[in-house]
């Protein structure tokens, strides 16, 4: 007989976690009113939305959405640039590798986490109340949105940089600030650029929904047409946004090849 080693007993995470997850799932489905019967009975109603959605009115979209689309792109450009510009210094303060003070590190890290917990549309709602309806509120909302994502991605990248160059700079007698500028910053700049392009793309996607709460962009048109159930006018907008996003993706792939 071969000697098969005994299987180690499963960890508590598995023995307790999996039954708990299943129970929680069942409970969640019950609470959200999961009901397949109603769903199949009313499935025919989807025609209200899907028929016009798959029957796009391109001529209408070309005539009426150009301004709003430009506005969407402008919101995304401004918000991603400003948000990432703010995030760049903040991330260095929110990383253990470059911020030697434990307390200020914790403070900056918590601030970034806090900004990240509030969903983008909530920011938009708050800013429309604070500064009035319009694209300015959308820009502010997306600044918070890009600040949060860039802060998280970049500070984690800084955490894992190669400490060698920093040590070398320190050995030549440079101050902490000089060390960070000459040895940490150049290491993460390519990542910063890549993240920036990714965030720009996310901002374009997000600005589609900003209009729902009056924060400008092409979502404004989607919202007014949705109320009148004119989904035939909405689907061209979705396609155009998709094309824009794909173009940006291609562009960022090209840029990344050049700089990385």
């Amino acid at each position, binding site marked *: 007989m071969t000697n098969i080693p005994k299987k180690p007993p499963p960890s508590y995470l598995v023995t307790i976690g999996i039954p708990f997850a299943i129970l929680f799932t069942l409970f969640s489905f019950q609470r*959200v009113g*999961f009901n397949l019967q109603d769903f199949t009975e009313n499935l025919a109603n989807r025609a209200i*939305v899907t028929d016009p959605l798959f029957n796009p009115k391109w001529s209408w979209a070309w005539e009426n959405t150009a301004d709003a689309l430009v506005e969407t792109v402008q919101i995304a450009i401004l918000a991603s640039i400003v948000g990432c510009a703010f995030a760049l210094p903040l991330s260095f303060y929110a990383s253990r590798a470059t911020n030697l003070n434990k307390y200020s590190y914790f403070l900056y890290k918590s601030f970034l986490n806090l900004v990240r*917990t509030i*969903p983008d549309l909530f920011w938009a709602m708050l800013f429309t109340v604070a500064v009035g309806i319009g694209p300015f509120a959308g*820009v502010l909302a997306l600044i918070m949105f890009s600040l949060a994502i860039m802060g998280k991605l970049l500070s984690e990248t800084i955490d894992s940089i190669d400490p060698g160059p920093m040590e070398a700079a320190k050995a030549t007698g440079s101050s902490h600030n000089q060390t960070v500028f000459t040895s940490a910053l150049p290491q993460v700049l390519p990542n910063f650029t890549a993240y920036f392009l990714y965030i720009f793309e996310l901002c374009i996607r997000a600005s589609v929904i900003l209009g729902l709460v009056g924060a400008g962009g092409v979502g404004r048109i989607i919202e007014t047409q949705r109320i009148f159930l004119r989904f035939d006018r909405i689907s061209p907008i979705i396609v155009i946004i998709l094309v824009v996003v794909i173009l940006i993706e291609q562009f960022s792939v090209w840029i990344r090849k050049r700089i990385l």
Partner: protein
Amino acid sequence: MNIPKQPLSHKILKYTLTSAIIFASLWSAAGLEITIARIIDAPRQIGILVGAMFPLDTSQEAFDRIIPKVFESLFIAWAGTVIGAIFSFPISFLAAHNVAAGAVSRITKQILNAIRAFPELILAFVFLPITGLGAFTGTLALGIHSIGTLGKLSSEVIEGIDEGPLEAIKSSGGSKINELIFGVIPQVMPTITSYWLYRFEINLRASAVLGVIGAGGVGQELINQLRFRDFPRAGTVLICTIVLVLVADAISASIRNRIIKGKVAKS
């Protein structure tokens, strides 16, 4: 001292990029009619709003309304993630080119791309006439969108596996099914599970938003309070949402860490 000069092409690239960024922001700011006066005034206006939220509305009645809504968002996010996980799991095998035949993989990938193209909010529009206003609509919208995103991520994990164990199974006479069960799944399961949890964190934020169009969750509550200018209660809604997201994120992140890094050896 002899410092090597930066090559000219680098300099040109640097200056073009900088001026392009400055020009793009100025063009955007001008187009959106954002003036310096508005920027300077914004912090004051935001301060007024934040000031109006305090003291928070901590009456029993407020919590009785808000807490169920907050938990509804949690249930929507979890149920949506489970739908996404269950359906995306088999689909991701069909989409991986090292498991499925070339044509099948290409077609499945295109289907997943098509699903991802629709934002959750648009999907919610589609489900509204079928399932009505309420949490179920939001669940389905999140679920369908999650199938697209999780399917893509999972199939990429499957494509990145080590082929060695598969060969070992094949050489000991295992069937194609054996290869999947004993060769592929044990390799990909930890990463895929952590993606599921990660998706749950994203869905939690998205489900909070879906309420704005009436698809259940805490978004409806926030927009109502802001419309009625009941700022103290809006503040309470906001704080409750933040607490829920922070706690759920922390639990999910610690489980993900445990799955990916394994048990930390006791020293």
